[in-house]
């Protein structure tokens, strides 16, 4: 908790708030154009759920990783991270601090999600509300936000310059997106690509129904994340800073 609050003190800056609000508003606007009933006619239904989840997917796949990458790379470019490490902070501790930040942001994201859904439910006319979807989405916000934030932290620790880290992170997401767009209908394994899998589950496009349906996504997403985190730890420990 102490580490997370320290990291949040450094993380919260004006540009971070602006980027997060900008991405959220942009996604909400896009959702309103796409699903006309979202926050439009004062009705809460399954489409509203999907639209809110779509906005939060943009938040934890794009906005938060973007700010995490900028935040960490800024600490390297002005030498603050090096100051901490050269004055006795272990490199592994520095990595752990950043993963603690990722965890804290995921929890904040989850709380924000619960707040938005409950606020909409309380102010709009509810025609559909499924507690199972709500609870599972809440858990998914936490897990997927952790997943994307951890990857962003890893990429930032590996690249240590915002140009290379952003290129790597968004490059991968864009390439995966292109593959899904091009081959999504014809090739079956494409739907198991980690980023696409996580967002499609969260946006209620591919809803797991029984326990075994969760095993395959977990089997893809968790190892993918662990490999990247392990690589970041390993290379950061040995890198010339």
């Amino acid at each position, binding site marked *: 908790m102490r580490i997370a609050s320290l990291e949040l003190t450094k993380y919260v800056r004006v540009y971070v708030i602006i980027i997060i609000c900008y991405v959220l508003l942009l996604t909400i606007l896009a959702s309103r154009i796409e699903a006309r009933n979202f926050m439009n006619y004062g009705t809460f239904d399954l489409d509203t759920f999907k639209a809110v989840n779509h906005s939060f997917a943009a938040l934890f796949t794009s906005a938060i990783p973007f700010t995490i990458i900028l935040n960490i790379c800024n600490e390297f470019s*002005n030498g603050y991270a090096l100051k901490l490490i*050269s004055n006795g902070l272990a490199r592994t501790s520095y990595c752990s601090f950043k993963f603690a930040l990722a965890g804290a942001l995921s929890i904040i994201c989850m709380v924000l999600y619960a707040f938005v859904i409950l606020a909409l439910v309380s102010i709009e006319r509810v025609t559909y509300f499924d507690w199972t979807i709500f609870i599972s989405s809440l858990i998914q916000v936490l897990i997927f936000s952790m997943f994307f934030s951890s990857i962003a932290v890893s990429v930032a620790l590996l690249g240590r310059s915002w140009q290379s880290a952003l290129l790597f992170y968004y490059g991968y997401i864009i390439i995966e997106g292109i593959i899904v767009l091009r081959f999504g209908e014809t090739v079956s394994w494409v739907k198991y690509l980690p980023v696409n899998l996580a967002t499609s589950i969260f946006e209620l496009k591919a809803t797991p129904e029984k326990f075994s349906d969760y095993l395959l996504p977990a089997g893809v997403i968790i190892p993918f994340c662990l490999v990247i985190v392990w690589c970041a730890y390993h290379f950061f420990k040995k890198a010339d*800073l």
Partner: protein
Amino acid sequence: MEIRNVSKRFGNKQVLKEISFSLDEGKILGLLGPNGAGKTTLLKIICGLVKPSAGEVILERVARTEIATIFEDQRFLGHLSGIKNMKLFMSSIYGGHSSLVEKFQEFGLNESQNVKFKFYSSGMKKRVDLMSAFVNGKRLYLLDEPTNALDIESMNAFNNQVISLKNEGKSFVIASHHALEMERLCDSFLLIDRGAIVGKMTREELLHNFISLESAYGSVIHKPQNRKNYLHS
């Protein structure tokens, strides 16, 4: 502390070539050399920021957490105040912090402790750097250009602080271009040029052979034929 045959190569560029020396407790070693000679890289290797390509750094009875460093290219966070920065720094490294208000007074920064770090002058930034190095008792101090941008009063305070810590048995490696200050503080000198040691001398040897550190520097760095005479200390 002992440095054994440390070499460092960045790509094709050989930055350090088989550097060896040792430093006893309570001693101050001065590193001198032209820009790009490899002084900062050497200090970064000692504190573990940069890994040597060959050779080793042996730190006897000195844990990594007992090393304090100051480097020119390492700054605090500009969007936070001086005191907030120090609190975060202390909490990150030591897990907590004592009252820092007295420290800010001691370093002449009590009026600007709540000002954002980016608005500090170069001298004030340097004073915060020095505070971060001296705030907790360390055993080894690696200081790269510690007095750049300091006014005369702060420079004198720095010198007094170094001498007092030295008397407590703390060791220092200082890289600086301020020959007069180095001459006053250091017990021994290491002259580096193009990544290699070109001269090693104690203060006694310096005073015996030269009129000042500046003349020793000129004689060894600019006249390679003299170097073999000053490599044996």
